[in-house]
């Protein structure tokens, strides 16, 4: 056993959880009170590594908890206590406590650094000064072999351990179960939505549903946009309607329309009941168009104003309405019957004189597409005239929506 101790220059003591589980626990009177069943760590806001706060000892069918302050030596061989009769029976674990063997060992975790889902093969505890900290998670095959007692076979001895620092670990189970660990979620939310989507695709539906529901609505909306269509369909079915409604409210209309398309009739009705009136109207309008046409692809995220107002009035309208739209780069100008007449960029609007009529600063719109236009044709027009966005109108030239260049890209390269 002595060979397993690893002492670094700073004389840090490092142990593997697998090597101390099941060791005898001996109290100050040298009486064996049971075997080590689990190690408890406490997750604290701001602390980089969780600290060992106690151990769970099993004797027969009885389990009790011993706080860390009563432990003299936690290491290989045996675990010794400073006192006797220091067991707490019927201890209730708090939400910030993790039981390493129960909650982490052999479970799946997110490796936020490598953006992947991995299974925990072992855990590394390091003693720094008087504290034991959970430093990292071993996901190597070497750890598996060590636990099967095969580590001393020559060719295996040469294999490397692969550690993931706790700073890069986010719990799968913590998000689902009763341990609502804030830190775990924060680590995850730092990732790009596309990366979170990748992680989600690698979980089973239960875990992925829990994960999406635990994210804040804005992140969840962005993540859902990135999830593969095949997977998304089943996922959406499982998210509960009120959560889904909150997420859909955060989505640009065209994405939201895609979501609606994927739902079963029953779920659709449930969702519509919970959506705000404005969003519901808009979605309903969009869902009338065929998927591969300009109408099916366009978004309702655009702003239009009447041609007879002043620059100042327009700016005021933008300020008031801006919350409803995910982005505004242009304002469309229409006549009183909503017929599209021109366009003004935010920049032009900023530079114009406040009193000026907006119709005098607008540029004419030369290229629009009809709602029934084929997506390929839309792409062709946008490419030919170098447009970043194009307005979609109906037969009577009434503006219905806009298509931006990223919508086209998404259509042309669906797998990205």
């Amino acid at each position, binding site marked *: 056993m002595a060979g397993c101790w690893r002492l670094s220059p700073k004389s840090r003591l490092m142990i593997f959880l697998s090597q101390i589980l099941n060791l005898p626990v001996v109290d100050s009177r040298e009486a064996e009170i049971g075997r080590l069943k689990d190690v408890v760590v406490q997750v604290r806001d701001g602390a980089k590594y969780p600290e060992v706060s106690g151990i769970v000892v099993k004797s027969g069918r009885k389990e009790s908890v011993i706080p860390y302050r009563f432990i003299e030596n936690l290491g290989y061989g045996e675990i010794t206590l400073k006192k006797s009769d220091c067991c707490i029976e019927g201890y209730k674990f708090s939400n910030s406590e993790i039981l390493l063997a129960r909650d982490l060992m052999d479970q799946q975790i997110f490796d936020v650094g490598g953006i992947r889902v*991995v299974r925990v093969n072992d855990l590394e505890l390091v003693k720094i000064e008087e504290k034991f900290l959970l430093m990292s998670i071993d996901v190597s095959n070497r750890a598996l072999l060590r636990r*099967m007692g095969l580590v001393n076979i020559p060719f295996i001895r040469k294999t490397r351990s692969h550690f993931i620092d706790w700073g890069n670990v986010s719990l799968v189970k913590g998000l689902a179960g009763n341990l609502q660990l804030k830190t775990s979620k924060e680590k995850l939310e730092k990732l790009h939505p596309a990366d979170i989507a990748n992680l989600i695709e690698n979980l089973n539906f239960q875990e992925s549903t829990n994960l999406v529901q635990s994210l804040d609505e804005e992140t969840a909306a962005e993540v859902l946009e990135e999830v593969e269509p*095949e997977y998304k369909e089943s996922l959406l079915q499982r998210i509960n309607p009120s959560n889904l409604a909150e997420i859909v409210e955060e989505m640009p209309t065209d994405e939201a329309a895609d979501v609606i398309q994927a739902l079963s009739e029953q779920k659709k009705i449930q969702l519509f*009941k919970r959506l705000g009136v404005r969003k519901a109207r808009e979605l*309903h309008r969009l*869902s009338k168009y065929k998927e591969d046409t300009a109408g099916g692809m366009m978004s309702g995220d655009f702003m239009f104003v009447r041609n007879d107002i002043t620059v100042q009035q327009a700016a005021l309208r933008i300020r008031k309405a801006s919350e409803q739209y995910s982005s505004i780069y242009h304002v469309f100008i229409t006549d009183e019957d909503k017929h599209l007449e021109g366009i003004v960029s935010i920049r032009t609007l900023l530079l114009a004189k406040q009193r000026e009529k907006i119709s005098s600063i607008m540029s004419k719109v030369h290229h629009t597409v009809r709602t029934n236009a084929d997506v390929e044709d839309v792409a062709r027009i946008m490419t030919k005239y170098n447009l970043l966005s194009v307005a979609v109108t109906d037969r009577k030239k009434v503006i219905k929506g806009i298509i931006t260049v990223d919508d086209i890209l998404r259509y042309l390269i669906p797998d990205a």
Partner: protein
Amino acid sequence: MQTLEKEIRPSRFTAAKMKWLLILSVIGPGIITGTADNDAGGITTYAVAGASFGYKMLWILLIIAFILGITQEMGARLGLVTGKGLAALIRENFSIKITTFVVLVTFSANWANVLADFAGIASVADIYGVPRYVAVPIAALLIWLIVYKGSFKLVQKIFLTSTVLFLSYVIAGYMAHPDWSAAVDGIIRPTMDMNTAFFYTAVAMIGTTVTAWGQFFVQSYYVDKGVSSEFMKYSRWDIIAAAFWTSLVAFFIVIATAATLNVAGVTIQDAGQAAMALEPLAGAFAKHLFAWGLLNASLLGLAVVAMTSSYLVTEAFGWEGRVDLKKESPVFYGLFTFCVFSTAAAILIPGLPLVQIIVGSQMLNTFVLPVLFIAILVLLNKKKLMGKFANGLFANIVSWLSVAFIVIMASMLVVMTFMPGSL
């Protein structure tokens, strides 16, 4: 809002229709597993049963249907409630050593199972005079390409189509002009011949139906389908349909050989011989149906079992790999490639002791079944894991008795194989 709701609710969509759609959407895992149980080894057993004992063994199919239903329901429930495969659950709830044992033994048993399926393909090749050195590699390559290149949806479609193709046995059975009253009699009136051969065949029929790989496969499949536990009651339809369809196919195989080979007094060793022997008795068409049925069954069996092996290992040891590859991990495909091509190569070795290898695989199956089913029942009794879907007292009695029955049957198969005459 009221009008909006009305507009989006299609009026023709009735509750009854909804229910049927739900049932259709969960159908698959049970049916495919049950049908794949009737692979080359299964068909051989049923064909031998009919040829040797006529209609007398048909009642055993009722037991098979029952047991298949019970064991599949356990797998489905575990998968639907936990959303996890059996290997992952064993690893998370028991020890790494038990996991390693179960995985390695199942993997080895599966290897021999795939080998038996290639033997089925080889015997079909023999019937049509195609050199097996051509047929076996082509079959291996075909299956490998489908799984490697195809999507989950495509693979599932192919599996379901293959399931329907088992109809060929139903037709072949019908064409053999069986004695229907004797067949009905054989089902409803249990009879036994008091000899070792009868007993051995009966046990083998049950032994080919309940397998370690089947438990892993059915559970993972339900997980992959992503149906939630709300759909539990609909999944039961899938399982009942599977038990019915699997036994129905078995029924027609038995009566096909019972009406012909048994009447004529022809004995056979494997399903390939059965197809050949059918020709003079039931016509060339019956032979073709039987042979193509065997080919279909072997292909489905080898794809399903080889895939299960690969899932099993990657899931148990956390080798699922990086997520951005979209497809399964390199380890998965490595294992799958190994399972398919090493068995294909092995079957081409002249003088391979095939029978011994298959018997060996059944033995491994026997070793792992008790461990597996005890683990499954312990898991099903965990309230924390299963919630309201945990086993109740009645479910426990039925499932423990079934498991005890399976384990005893499987053990007897091994004893009888190695010590003929001891029972």
